[in-house]
């Protein structure tokens, strides 16, 4: 079965989604990421969706779930590279991706993950 590769960069994990994901692939990514966060004690997860030409409620929910799981495991999730047409569609669909930080591109996302978190 297909897998989306997860790259390690120090204590960060980088995922670039470049295929039109079917639901099982999305679920597998969720499991793999959770395992990797634990395995390397990751502090951050960067998900690059510049290759996705749609995000529907299923993929949106997967991204939110990953962010939620990561947060419980003390890691931050930053979503980068969302195409403008995808962003417009997501808002109209009613999907707000709670708990997910976003950045325009991988560079900015990496910078965001390397800055210390705001302490309340």
């Amino acid at each position, binding site marked *: 079965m297909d897998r989306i590769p997860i790259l390690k960069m120090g204590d960060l994990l980088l995922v670039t989604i470049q295929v*039109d994901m079917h*639901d099982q692939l999305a679920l597998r990514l969720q499991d793999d990421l959770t395992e990797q966060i634990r395995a390397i004690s990751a502090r951050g997860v960067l998900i690059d969706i510049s290759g996705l*030409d749609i995000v*529907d409620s299923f993929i949106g929910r997967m991204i939110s779930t990953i962010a939620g799981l990561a947060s419980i495991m003390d890691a931050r999730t930053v979503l980068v590279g969302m195409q403008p047409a995808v962003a*417009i569609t997501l808002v109209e669909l*009613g999907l707000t991706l709670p708990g997910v930080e976003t950045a325009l591109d991988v560079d900015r996302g990496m910078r965001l993950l390397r800055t210390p978190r705001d302490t309340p």
Partner: protein
Amino acid sequence: MIVRESGTHDVTAEQHVVLARQLVRRLAVQCGLRLVDQTKVVTAASELARNTVIYGGGGAMDWAILDRDGRTGLRLLFRDEGPGIPNLDLAMTDGWTSGSGLGLGLTGARRLVDEFELDSAPGAGTRVSIIKWT
């Protein structure tokens, strides 16, 4: 209204959702929809195709390219012979779901297209028709 071209696509298994998305993208391009509208109709199709597989137990998507008053439209009809929807008003409420989803499928799809029709009754299957115009 003139039907310029039409066809049917199986929506019986989960992998058909991806194939339906790809077909709808090609049709949307062929209709001359602009990128944002292509994205909206493909996303709506993805939601409805998934409903057809998960809740309807599989079915089909009938597609048609329409001409009306100089505009081109893409019509998609998702139909299944599944258990149907007992309460249509509830099904069209944001955030309500009978399954484990977010409850955005039907209501979200409606917001993304120009015309939306839902026809369902318990035991009589479900038919959802959407149109996106240029």
